[in-house]
């Protein structure tokens, strides 16, 4: 009886070559693709991949389901924005400060929450993130409270007096996002092929057994959390700089924490490609809803008349429905595809192998 769902075997040289080719293509995209909307979608996908892959390190590999990762996202976002808008510190330094801040609070949170197991850990992670959100709302002197922080201008990046890039177009954000994605994937790959990966997964599979095999739970859980928090804050910083505006309800919300988890469980927890697939599914879907593309195309294709009650309902409301779709997706995935898309297809191909054998 052979199970194909082995997370530790490498995927083979073919995958590596294929991936490198895709990466090379991605680097060339902005040169040939001028459509800013396409670039916009790509940037959002990159942010989501980083968000999901970072969470994956703690949740997928180590089995600690934090539903409060918005705390680290928001920490990165707010630190970068506050330093830039209120202290004129350029974002290439601010991002580092954000990562440091995220690391510090991660270690504090870890010391509190890791004593708890399973659902209690989930609840504690939610409570902590909510504390951050409410604090950001109340500490108006630091964060502007509910009004949020708006970017006036990102200074151009200069080295030795010559301008490398300004931030008026989407292109620098695209490349930054792509680089962040590569960093996160590299980190995940390194973890998976190192002692850390073995220990993380052992903790996920059976914490007490892992403990009795010489694995310090405190050390390794906090390591996973630290790495996860730092990388999540990267995505928060990028998001903040790209979108140009943040407030507690967007970057510190429970909704955001849920969508971070969703990216992973849709694609497949504990795998390198899972969050990528999750982002590729979620981002276009939610953008299509947000921008009313679905509604518009249904109407312009003639399937739905614009003046009909359904038509007006579509145009007015579907853009608000993306959270609803998140909810539906979570329900569907948990009920029918708990191992995510990847797991689902692996199980299918396993059945085929069984029948063929």
């Amino acid at each position, binding site marked *: 009886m052979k199970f194909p*769902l082995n997370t530790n075997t490498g995927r083979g040289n073919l995958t590596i070559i294929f991936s490198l080719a895709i990466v090379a293509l991605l680097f060339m995209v902005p040169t040939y693709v001028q459509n800013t909307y396409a670039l916009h979608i790509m940037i959002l996908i990159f942010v989501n991949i980083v968000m999901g892959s970072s969470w994956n390190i703690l949740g997928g590999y180590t089995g600690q389901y934090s539903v409060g990762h918005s705390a680290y996202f928001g920490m990165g976002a707010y630190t970068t924005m506050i330093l830039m808008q209120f202290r004129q510190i350029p974002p290439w330094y601010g991002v580092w400060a954000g990562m440091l801040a995220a690391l510090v609070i991660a270690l504090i949170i870890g010391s509190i929450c890791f004593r708890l197991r399973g659902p209690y850990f989930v609840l504690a992670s939610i409570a902590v993130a909510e504390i951050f959100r409410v604090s950001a709302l109340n500490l108006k002197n630091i964060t502007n409270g509910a009004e949020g922080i708006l970017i006036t201008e990102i200074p151009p990046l200069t080295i030795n007096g010559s301008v490398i890039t300004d931030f008026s177009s989407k292109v620098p954000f695209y490349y930054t996002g792509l680089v962040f994605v590569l960093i996160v994937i590299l980190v995940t790959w390194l973890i998976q092929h190192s002692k850390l990966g073995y220990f993380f*997964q052992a903790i996920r599979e*059976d914490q007490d057994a892992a403990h009795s095999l010489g694995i310090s739970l405190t050390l390794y859980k906090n390591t996973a959390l630290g790495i996860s928090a730092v990388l999540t804050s990267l995505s928060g910083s990028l998001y903040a700089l790209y979108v140009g505006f943040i407030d507690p309800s967007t970057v510190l919300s429970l909704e955001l924490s849920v969508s971070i988890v969703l990216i992973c469980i849709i694609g497949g927890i504990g795998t390198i490609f899972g969050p990528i697939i999750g982002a590729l599914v979620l981002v276009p879907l939610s953008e299509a809803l947000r921008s009313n593309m679905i509604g518009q195309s249904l109407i312009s294709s003639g399937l739905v008349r614009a003046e009909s009650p359904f038509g007006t309902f579509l145009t007015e409301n579907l853009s608000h429905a993306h959270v609803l779709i998140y909810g539906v997706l979570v329900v569907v995935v948990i009920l029918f595809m708990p191992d995510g898309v990847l797991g689902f297809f692996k199980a299918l191909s396993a059945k085929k192998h069984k029948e063929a054998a």
Partner: protein
Amino acid sequence: MAILEIRHVSKFFGGLSANSDVSFELEQGMIMGLIGPNGAGKTTLFNCITGYYPPSKGEVVFNGKTMNGLQPDKVCKLGMARTWQKVRPLAKMSVVDNVMVGALCRTNSLKVAREMAMEQVRVVRLEHRTDFLAGGLPIGERKKLEVARVLATQPKLLLLDEVMGGLNPAESEEIIRLILDIRTLGITQMVIEHDMKAIMRISDRIVVLSSGEKLAEGSPDEIVNNPDVVAAYLGSE
């Protein structure tokens, strides 16, 4: 030289006394059988010894070092390892990866760990399952996997908790052979078992627990002829 000293160990859970003033010693290299009716406190004692929880009273001394309050991971690193009564395979990881987790206790190199792991996989005769997921193994092989995994941590003292539970005679025989082979490696062992024939064959000495207290200690012959021991087992039926 006593490798392990249990000195007046007691463990209370609320009002319940699971272990009560238990004392005995293990000599280096011996196999000690730990027997007693269900609920006698054998697994509780294992848990106290290995740091799963600390004893309420008394001391556990390993190689001259007091172990009270040490976390299980430190206990393992010092050379004391245990298996679990209810097997705990790392289900979504392969057999060799499971054993590697144990080996990584002693090395940081994945390559070396894999070699160490494969050696133990061969010792317990699970090479044909090297890349299978642990979660898919039948119970007998899971028990062997657990032994291989714990051997990879290079223990000086090995605590086996009902490692033959639920096995058929052929599988039990394999485990017995394994335990005897482990002794030739110089590893001291304490074995909790219900299979009396097996215990008689492998043990150099036996400690009997009943209702949390040490009832008797002695050679297998002494124990089998001890009327208190017989009464404890008969009385618990």
